[in-house]
């Protein structure tokens, strides 16, 4: 028999609105992607860059903007409205690094910022590198490089 208390917990605990969050994320993420594509074309046109060079510029632009918004204290508010649309792209990665750097600045450059800046982003980097190796090896075995 299930515990009466746990029954009440599941009865009263509010359900997260997964569908609504997913739709918001999809739309906001899609709009962000579209804007980035426009910016990518813009950089190619204005600075006569290749597509891949222009892509790097777009990523840098996103990193700078999200870091500045984090420092101004508005990025967390944007996330509460736009959900994971801002967390999953590179903006979320930059945000996690900037927010950690801001937080630990008062504890010094080495033991504060240095030791804590990758507090949230560290696992993204570790598993990013590990998965690059894994998929690289799979690609080598199947496609020969």
């Amino acid at each position, binding site marked *: 028999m299930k*515990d*009466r*208390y*746990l029954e*009440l*917990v599941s*009865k*009263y*605990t*509010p359900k*997260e609105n997964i569908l609504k*969050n997913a739709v918001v994320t999809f739309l906001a993420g899609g709009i962000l992607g579209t804007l980035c594509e426009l910016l990518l074309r813009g950089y190619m046109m204005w600075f006569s860059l290749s597509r891949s060079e222009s892509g790097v510029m777009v990523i840098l632009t996103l990193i700078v903007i999200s870091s500045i918004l*984090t*420092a101004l*204290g508005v*990025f*967390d*508010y*944007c*996330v*509460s409205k736009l*959900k*994971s649309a*801002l*967390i999953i792209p590179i903006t979320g990665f930059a*945000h*996690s690094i*900037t*927010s*950690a750097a*801001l*937080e*630990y600045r*008062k504890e010094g450059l080495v033991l504060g910022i240095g030791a804590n800046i990758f*507090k*949230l982003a560290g696992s993204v980097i570790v598993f990013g590198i590990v998965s690059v190796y894994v998929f690289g090896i799979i690609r080598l075995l199947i496609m020969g490089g």
Partner: protein
Amino acid sequence: MTTKFNNVYIDECYTIASIYEKDGPISDYFDLIYDKDFYYGCDTFEKAEEKMLSNSISKLINRAKVIDSDVDYVISGDLENQIASSNYAMRDFNIPFLGIYSACATFGQGLLLGANLIEGKRANKIIVATSSHNMVAEKQFRNPTEYGAPKKKSTTWTATGAASMLLTNRKKRIKITSATAGIVQDKGIKDVNNMGAVMAIAAADTIKRHLSDLKIKADYYDLILTGDLGIYGKNILIDYLKDSGIDLSKNYDDCGLILYDIKKQPVYAGASGPVCSALVLCSYILKEMERGKYQKVLIVPTGAVFNSTKVFQKDSIPSIAHAIGLEVIN
């Protein structure tokens, strides 16, 4: 175990609150509101919390017209590692200090210990204090303060402020009549974003034992208050105690829902933190008791006594609640 007291009174209180508390429904009751930012004139959040606590104690001492040596003990605790705000704030005073920790039930534990020391004639005057700071708690238990991750609806919002109360053996208007110490409860819940569900069981157990030890019904009190269960924890508690024949539907509320207006403020399920119940008690409740709105009040601060390392090791979250009975003397 429930202890009855005959000789313990509340002398004076002093409360300091911050931005979110100012926007809440009981902001007129606070002694001091600092709403410029979360720094309280300091350069870190940790120092801000320490200074708030220190200020609330020194202003209480001034208000009660006593000096350091009149006070036998200060009993205080907070959420920071090694209860740093309390330990560091007490550098400013020449008063014997007892640091305690029951997470958000700390103020309840302080009142229970203070009342016992006074009743046992080991002390005449004791200050019980606590503090919490939203940003300090975020950093300590969650993510960097500026980090924005989508939050669950059942999340509670740590209140920012400090509250202190002077207990005395001299007769005053409001008396501490009884106290029930909590027993640590654990129903196996592991969700740190659903503290109401974690703690409601502790409140239920303590309220049940308090009422049966004193052989009274819930309607003996004009008001029963839990600390920081939030709206969902409150509903769980009401429904759960109904099965034990305890009716909380009429005279029960939660401090987390009194301190903030969850319909208007972006605080999810309500307020939390050790200062949540302390702010509500030391401002709104005591003033309304003096004005005659309430005669008898039972306050049950609730705490999730968890540890971040244990949470990451997938252990469930224990909780505790201490009950304190208050009465207006005519």
